[in-house]
């Protein structure tokens, strides 16, 4: 077995691992990046990127349906194979980009499955051929995989995970989505817009648990307008096959219901990929839920091993994985980097989009603040009215005493983009007044953020203050 020696070896090439490898290369470390499947991990291959390609296309079709009031009528025809091809092209482009970036930063990309054989060595099984990689430092970024539930084992045919759903094999007439979380609703919305009759089954009392209830209400309203049925407090009990069709058995308030359908998408969570990679051999401690335990410098219990991304715990977000990848790489290179972010924004690509950063009103209270809240509705904003996307609002939370900005929730057009300004504001330690006094171009959507901040101070211009 051939042995290669590196300064650092990264295992897993998702947004955590591939970014860590780039940064290590940038910092002059001789680096290998090991990946057993496709470069880019979940995010690039069947997560963030391809799902957003589908969402954007579905939104365009949807925009058209609502465009008659603007004098635009059309009967859009949808070629699913073509859309799938486009989505595949997007993925291919991004994967190619990562290849170029790794090469440009002198990172060796090695195809195969890595397993620790000790704290300073892994074996890579590249399909027959095995290689031993030795290094002073390892970054483990093997991510997470969809949780299965009994009776709904993924078969790639009738029961889809997000992976199959994102692949868009077809648009089923009737789709049951088990799990009313972010991924279930993002993909459920796509299929609803593309023509499926969608039913969402959620075990908890609300969809999008943890998200601002007012935001949830708007998403729920829009789902209903698209004839998406939503069952909350509903437990998926089992799946039956009856003459060509599927029947999902659901228990709601102790009563059983049967929902006939053509496909089932199960999106009830992710579990970490911490087994089978020899973490014990390396001396890495794994926590009770399977997440690897790390400190704020991404260090595990083994001095040579760092861990980042989905594998080391929530929030399971690509940009969290990338940020941790940069930190781990910098720590390995001797920098004093540390996980000290104030803001970790989260974007939900439902319709309308929802994005949050910092503290919600409840969280602020729980942390002992006396919060003040400012809110501005897009229906009062010129830009939103002009582009005919007026559903939603910006809500900001501040500290009554110091007037510091503590958090923001944005629901509405481009919310995923608009949250960036709020994230920067939080990270900079901005006061509500800092945002309120900053000139915002007219007519643009971020004016709503400015108005919400002014509103929290009782000084909104385009809303009569209470």
């Amino acid at each position, binding site marked *: 077995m051939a042995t290669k020696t590196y300064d650092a070896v990264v295992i897993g090439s998702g947004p955590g691992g591939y970014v860590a490898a780039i940064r290590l290369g940038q910092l002059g470390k001789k680096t290998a990046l090991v990946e057993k499947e496709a470069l880019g991990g979940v995010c690039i291959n069947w997560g963030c990127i391809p799902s957003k390609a589908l969402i954007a296309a579905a939104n365009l079709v949807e925009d058209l349906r609502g465009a008659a009031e603007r004098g635009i009528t059309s009967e859009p025809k949808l070629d699913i194979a073509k859309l799938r091809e486009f989505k595949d092209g997007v993925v291919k482009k991004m994967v190619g980009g990562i290849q170029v970036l790794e090469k440009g930063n002198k990172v060796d990309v090695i195809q195969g499955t890595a397993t620790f054989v000790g704290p300073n060595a892994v074996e890579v099984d590249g399909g027959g051929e095995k290689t031993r990689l030795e290094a002073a430092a390892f970054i483990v970024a093997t991510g997470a995989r969809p949780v299965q539930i009994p009776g709904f084992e993924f078969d790639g045919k009738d029961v889809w995970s997000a992976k199959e759903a994102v692949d868009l094999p077809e648009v089923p007439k009737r789709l049951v989505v088990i799990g009313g979380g972010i991924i279930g609703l993002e993909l459920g919305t796509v299929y609803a817009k593309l023509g499926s009759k969608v039913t969402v089954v959620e075990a908890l009392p609300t969809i999008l648990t943890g998200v601002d209830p007012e935001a949830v209400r708007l998403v729920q309203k829009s789902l209903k307008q698209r004839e998406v049925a939503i069952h909350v407090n509903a437990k998926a009990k089992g799946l039956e096959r009856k003459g060509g069709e599927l029947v999902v058995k659901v228990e709601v308030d102790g009563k059983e219901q049967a929902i006939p359908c053509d496909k089932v998408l199960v999106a009830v969570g992710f579990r970490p990929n911490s087994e089978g990679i020899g973490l014990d051999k390396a001396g890495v401690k794994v926590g009770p839920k399977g997440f690897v335990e790390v400190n704020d410098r991404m260090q595990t219990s083994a001095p040579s091993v760092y861990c980042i991304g989905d594998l080391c715990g929530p929030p399971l977000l690509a940009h969290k994985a990338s940020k941790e990848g940069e930190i781990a790489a910098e720590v390995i290179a001797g*920098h*004093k*980097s*540390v996980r*000290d*972010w*104030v803001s970790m924004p989260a974007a939900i690509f439902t319709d309308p989009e929802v994005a949050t950063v910092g*503290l919600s009103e409840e969280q602020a209270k729980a*942390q*002992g*603040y006396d919060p003040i809240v400012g809110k501005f509705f897009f229906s009062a904003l010129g830009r939103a009215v002009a582009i005919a996307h007026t559903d939603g609002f910006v809500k900001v939370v501040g*500290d009554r*005493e*110091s007037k*510091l900005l*503590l958090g923001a929730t944005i629901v509405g057009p481009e919310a995923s983009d608009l949250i960036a300004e709020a994230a920067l504001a939080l*990270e*900079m*330690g901005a*006061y509500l007044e800092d945002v309120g006094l900053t000139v915002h171009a007219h007519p643009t959507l971020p004016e709503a953020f400015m108005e919400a901040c002014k509103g929290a101070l009782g000084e909104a211009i385009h809303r009569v203050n209470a």
Partner: protein
Amino acid sequence: APAERSGRKVLAAPAVRAMARQLGVDLGLVHGSGPGGRVLKDDVHGARNGHAHPPPELTAPA
């Protein structure tokens, strides 16, 4: 101070925090001369040069 409640010890932008780490300066001991006590790069430099608690007349707003 209320800022402590959010888990953030001191009001300082990320570049200032990075600089303090690099220089081994404890931000908690630096007097912030920015609005509301926000710690600025100059404050960190000052602290490093031995002025962990600069006299008030040096930090009064201009």
